């Protein structure tokens, strides 16, 4: 069974008088444990695709099956629950809450999940350990380097044991050495059985993946298994 199955997905925006077809009749299957890179120039629809897969956005037409369930018609709150339990996000700009320590940032998804306080703390600490940051968990994001902040963000993404990790240009704001470390973490997560989907325009980053999907004008141009 496919973990993610998109059938004839359209995503149409209205921008003033113009309509923009960000995704045009796109179909795609991703299995559990795959390591996928979605590539394309800016405006190719790769971010829109990530938003649709990540349940941040809803398709205008078509069907989205996640874990075999049709989630096309789910309400906003139901999608929030899916984002909380099934999907983890890593962003180019880290998107940590500046007023909270590393630990508090990692705890946050568990707070929204309604997990008990002690279990929560154990999970968050083990997630921080997995990214090698347990020493610095009481620091604010502003006291951490870019690479460390991205590790906190990864810890936050994986703390609730999601099946899918979506990373949008995760190394875009990092130098090449740090980027290598971060990609190393992704490789380990794939080995642990998490489905990792990278969105990037950088061939170097994409080369870590085992499957590369190329988009152009909202359509699939190429689907390469490496």
């Amino acid at each position, binding site marked *: 069974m496919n973990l993610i199955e998109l059938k004839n997905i359209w995503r149409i925006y209205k921008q003033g008088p113009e309509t923009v077809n960000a995704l045009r009749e796109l179909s795609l299957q991703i299995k559990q444990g795959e390591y996928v890179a979605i590539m394309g120039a800016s405006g190719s629809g790769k971010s829109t695709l990530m938003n649709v897969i990540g349940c*941040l*956005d809803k398709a205008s037409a078509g069907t989205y099956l996640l874990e075999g369930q049709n989630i096309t018609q789910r309400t906003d*709150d139901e999608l929030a629950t899916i984002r*909380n339990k099934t999907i983890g996000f890593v962003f180019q700009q880290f*998107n*940590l*809450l500046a*007023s*909270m320590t590393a630990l508090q940032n990692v705890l946050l998804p568990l707070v*929204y999940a309604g997990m008990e306080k002690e279990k929560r703390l154990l999970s968050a600490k083990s997630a921080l350990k997995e990214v090698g940051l347990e020493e610095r968990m009481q620091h604010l994001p502003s006291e951490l380097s870019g690479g460390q902040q991205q590790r906190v963000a990864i810890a936050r993404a994986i703390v609730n044991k999601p099946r899918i990790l979506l990373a949008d240009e995760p190394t875009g704001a990092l130098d090449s050495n740090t980027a290598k470390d971060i990609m190393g973490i992704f490789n380990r997560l794939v080995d642990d059985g998490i489905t990792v989907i990278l969105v990037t325009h950088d061939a170097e980053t994409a080369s870590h993946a085992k499957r590369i999907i190329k988009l152009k004008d909202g359509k699939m141009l190429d689907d390469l298994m490496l």
Partner: protein
Amino acid sequence: MSTIELFSIAWQGILSNRLRSGLTVLGIIIGIASVITLLGIGQGAKMEAEKQVQALGVNLIYIRPGAANTASISQGQGTAPTLTYEDALAIKQNCPAVENVAAQYTIGFQVQHGEQNTITNVTATEPSYTDIRNFYPVSGRFFNQNDMKEGSRVCVIGDTVALNLFGSDNPIKKQILIRGELFEIIGVMEHKGVTQSLDMDDQIFIPLTTGYATLIGLNAVTGRSVRSILVQCKKDEDMQAQFQITNLLRLRHNIHSPDFDDFTLRTQMDIMQTAQSITGVFSLLLGATAGISLLVGGIGIMNIMLVSVTERTKEIGIRKAIGAKYSQILSQFVIEAVLMSLTGGVAGILLGIFGSTSISQFAKWTTVVTPESIILSFLVSLAIGLFFGIYPARKAAKLDPIVALHME
């Protein structure tokens, strides 16, 4: 997600911008503190007014003559000589609902003792005055029926007069001149203070009969005229007493139609109601002023919450991306607003209590902070937080996570 958790998230939100939250809270503090203080002043004024009316005596009816007319110009209520000492005696004899009666004639005179010299009110009245007014001598005695019969030249002075003429000396048995007439002081009245704009302590009391013989004289038409008659009714019989007095006086003055009454009756109830309606308006004005400052404080909260939502759009986006539901974002911002307004409310209540205590200390005004006004202020600040917090919170909760995430 537990309520405590929601509160702790909201609390972190408040702490993440301390200065702004502090200034917002300040608006509510000032609003609530002025409500507490101004209501305290209003309540105090009301209590003071009631106390003064109570101090005049209980179950009282004041009878005053109508206005005298000089060449068709009214000289004002109470100036006609139509009410007489004989009327007072008749009321005492003929009205069963009446407990006690004291006729009085008050007039201003110059009073001398040695080199000291003052102008004061001389009240010529009857011995029953003390019981009716609930106003007694603190040293010496008041004049009695015997003094009335004899027309003795004795007087009882108020404590302001005693201070003005004698300083710290004992005035008893001393002689004073009232408009040149010699009187012996037999008593000094207790301190009573100012009631109904009359300084009760700046008065000299003499027997009514002595008054007619020496200072007042007789009216050419009506003889022993009086300026007012104080009547104390029997308990719970004020209505009967008013009815009996009115009828008796109409009969004695040959009045057939109420339109031609040459006297007026005022009860203590009337005076109390007047005082209450004045202090009521006073309280209302103060309350309205305070209410406006609270409203401004509330708008301040809404303003800041709106700014906060705009400024924290990205934060909201992040929270939504990691799984916060509509209700969770909504409660975060509503609770933030409520926490700020409640903090302001509690601090404002404390400041208000401090403010009204200071006012009574320094300005010598009576202020009363009632539990009701504290509870009211607390509930109002809660309501302000809810009311002005909901709109910005809804705005936050409805944000599209994608748009919010791409905000810088």
